[in-house]
């Protein structure tokens, strides 16, 4: 389990990292927490000539909680999970990251890295989609913001350009009448999601569902919004029948992947089960 040899750079700033990306082109890979990249290197599934380690870039650290929550792309899962502002303003995010991997993984793995890697079974993409969050990226031409809905293109592929570095992840701070939850069937071996469903709801003053976003990860090649399930919920009273309708509508227009642990059929059924759980939990929080 030894990676092929590579050149190593540890830039001190995002600008320097972008310039290294420019310089090395396709040869280069960004190394953040490394918990997806290093296993791939050791298995020689990936053999980049150059690694650009962004873990020492101070401007990628830090978490700021205001009307929205801005998380430096280099913030570790442990930092996010332990952040009081995140826990009170966007509990679903803290709960999502605190069940990823184990303590060692959470001390190294970063939110920016997970989103940029776009593993089809990673937890965070579903949560970012459900929260309507975004990532900020910096490239040679400056910075831009990519909405979660535009970020995940296909398996392991995002809308990021090869010369862009994720700098920040932004999610809303949830207020009164809003609730979000993430519910997951764990892969027994990897503990990634066989199916993970994140749900967000916003209640109107009369208690009906004013807005809903539901996203699924793990089941197919990429994390996806569930518009039919959302439609079943919006305008409803958010009662058991509405939750059941949303669950029934979830997962019908998706591409599925199967493996030795869970077939496509099983994942399709579990999308419905976990949509029901996530939506019910989100509604209950919105009402609290």
């Amino acid at each position: 389990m030894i990676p092929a040899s590579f050149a190593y750079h540890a830039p001190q700033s995002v600008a320097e990292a972008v310039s290294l990306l420019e310089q090395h082109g396709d040869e280069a890979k960004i190394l953040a927490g490394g918990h997806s990249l290093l296993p791939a290197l050791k298995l020689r599934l990936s053999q980049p000539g150059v690694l650009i380690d962004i873990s020492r870039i101070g401007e990628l650290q830090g978490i700021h909680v205001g009307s929205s929550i801005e998380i430096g792309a280099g913030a570790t899962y442990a930092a996010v999970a332990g952040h009081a502002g995140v826990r009170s303003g966007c509990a679903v995010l803290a709960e999502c990251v605190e069940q990823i991997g184990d303590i060692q993984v959470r001390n190294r793995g970063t939110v920016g890295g997970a989103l940029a890697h776009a593993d089809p079974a990673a937890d965070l993409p579903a949560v970012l989609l459900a929260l309507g969050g975004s990532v900020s990226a910096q490239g040679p031409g400056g910075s831009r913001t990519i909405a979660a809905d535009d970020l995940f293109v296909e398996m392991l592929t995002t809308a990021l350009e090869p010369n862009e570095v994720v700098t920040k992840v932004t999610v809303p701070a949830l207020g009164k009448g809003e609730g979000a939850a993430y519910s997951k069937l764990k892969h027994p071996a990897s503990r990634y999601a066989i199916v993970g469903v994140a749900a967000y709801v916003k209640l109107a003053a009369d208690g009906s569902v004013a807005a809903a976003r539901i996203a699924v990860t793990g089941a197919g090649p990429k994390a996806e919004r569930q518009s039919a399930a959302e439609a079943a919920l919006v305008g409803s009273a958010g009662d058991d029948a509405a939750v059941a309708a949303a669950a029934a509508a979830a997962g019908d227009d998706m591409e599925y992947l199967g493996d030795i642990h869970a077939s496509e059929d099983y994942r399709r059924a579990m999308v419905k089960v976990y949509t029901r759980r996530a939506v019910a939990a989100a509604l209950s929080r919105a009402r609290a």
Partner: protein
Amino acid sequence: MAYATMIGAKVRRKEDPRLITGSGTYVGDLKLPGMQHVAFVRSPYPHATIGHIDISAALARPGVTAVVPGRDLLDAYEPLPIGSGGEGGTSGSVSRPHSHYAISIDRVRHTGEIVAAVIATSPEVAVDAVADVIVDWQPLPAIVDMEQAASPDAPRLFDSLPSNVDHVWECNVGDVAGAFASADRIVKQRMANQRLAGVSMEGRAVVALPDYTTDGLTVWTSTQAPHLSRGSLAKTLRMHENQIRVIAPEVGGGFGIKIGVYPEDVALAALARIHRIPLRWVETRVEHMLATTHGRAQIAEYEAAVKADGTITALRVRITADIGAYPVAPDIPDLTGKMLVGVYHIPAADVQISCVFTNTTPVAAYRGAGRPEAAYYIERLVDVIAADLGLDPADVRRRNFIPPAAFPYRTVVDTLYDSGEYDRALSKALMISDYAGLRAEQVRRRAAHAAGEPVSLLGIGMATYVEMCGFGPYESASVRVEPTGTVTVMTGISPHGQGTGTTFAQIVADQLGADFEQIIVKHGDTATTPMGQGTMGSRSLAVGGAALVRAVAKVREKASRVAAHLLEAAPDDIVLEAGRYQVRGVPDRHLSLIEIADRAYSDDLPDDIDPGLEAVDFFKPPELIYPFGAHVAVVEIEPDTGQVRVHSYFTVDDCGPRISPVIVAGQVHGGLAQGIAQALFEEVVYDSNGQLLSGSLMDYTIPRADDLPNFTLDKTETPTPHNPLGVKGIGEAATIGSTPAITNAVVDALAHLGVRHLDIPLRSERIWRALQNRKESQ
């Protein structure tokens, strides 16, 4: 410290301080001057002819010392020994036709088989150079399915054999036809024991060092059986055993997969001799999944002739056992045959076990090795019988138990059980688990589920197992009281995590009057330990401990003679009491072992007492021994996902008297984890082309702490007459009992929905499908 209480005392493991502080030395920690590193070119195909091997690019890479295809070593060694990976203690034979060389020369028969070795100055360069080697592969049709492997038109692994069947174990005793003809009911069930991987925490590793004093070798290898390894290496390399020193330093787990000599051991030994440099190879986890032997891998068809009251009158059994590509331990499925009837008096059986080759990694010993398969089948079958007859599974078991008065009891498959009291264990397990209360709770949950309430389904499973252990042919121990009265023990067994050194020290403390803290137990070095077999098959205490007791008795006798001289008493009047050698009936005339040792190495001994205070002895077990027990598992199933949670688990294990209860508990805990994992999680999966789909721990599910409940452990104690301690064995017992107990519990949870059997591992999807089928059929 009260010496007399060491046996049976809950002492802390002597091994733990060094292990948990990272101070242990494993093979991979060794750094020898001038040492180079080996990496292997392995087959990506399950079955292929090896054409030209182009080593030029690899050889040109800076740092590469040699690139060695198999043909370059034809003069260096014999083919690998056959059958060295079994439980019974043999270094294997080279007489069978279907062996292969450590580095294969013309054909590969499983993915991961070695076709060339690279020696380089660093592990990095060695791995890089492996990728430079170009092999002209000519793929051959592969056979992966064990049941199809026996068919005449299946691709054949060995041209010299008439089929892929290595051998068939058969037994046909009693009036089977008559029993079936007169049965009230014939109960049939097909069952599978899926293929498992060992996944020891430490993988395999080898360092081979030329030894010019013997014109031989020192080989450090992560093994359970250093002496057997030495024998195999000597045989294979055409050397004498005294030229080879095998050392198993700290070994991080084995579970049976580290018994026999592997191609990598032989290859490194041969290459170190040829190149006259020390060489190291450390297995990667991917190599472990591909090329370290697997376990289980059987499919069984059972038929039972049954009376209406649940009495089993005969069994008809057909088992296919997949032994993989080479006969590393082809006789393990025979042990399934020998344990076929379990704890039951079944007077007639017709059994055939076909052991077949397939283009997969060889299957050899894995925790229980043949016996868990047997226990799983018979314990599942009894539950199926109970379900078919509408009887309580505990009642069907009691109806068929071999009664205590029947021991020693020879089973219909010619296995001689030493002692057992099966109903006592079962009754205790049912009592401590509150079986009646669990059944009442199950009724409540089923009613709630039927009423549409979101409750989990409760399943209660039991298993009453018996297993075979204490394999010979012998074990050894030497005991030396040092001049200051400390004690050094050398044992032929080779613990690799069990903590047997602690157990042995407890025995020595009591039986020699030594200070437990001052006893050092050494093992795993053929240059310093007496000739032994190793640690496998739950034999360490029953056979190795028995040898220790004999050696200790010799030393004690000598100590008594010295004491008699000093105390001016007759040797027969010296007794060891409360850690002191005293004159019988005169408690104030006594000597400590320290005082005796001091004199034993002095020039102040009478002429009729030789100096020194040490002895070596061997123990040859007269018969095999049969631990048993009863387990109760309680599971909860989430109806909408099929996920299983183990709610609670109760064991009553009977391993005879317990020398070291903490170590027994540790063995039970670990055994339960592995047995539960076979029922719920683990499976080596190949696709139909012979490619491994479960090649890493991202796909192969090993159990973790949060998968398991707190265990409730209990015991009965039924000594064996076959060794001086009366001890049986506990290393494999919990694994053997728990796989059927959990499976029975899961099926029990679903029984009211019409589920009669499910194959393991019980992945949530499998259970969900059973529940879906039930819904659809409603």
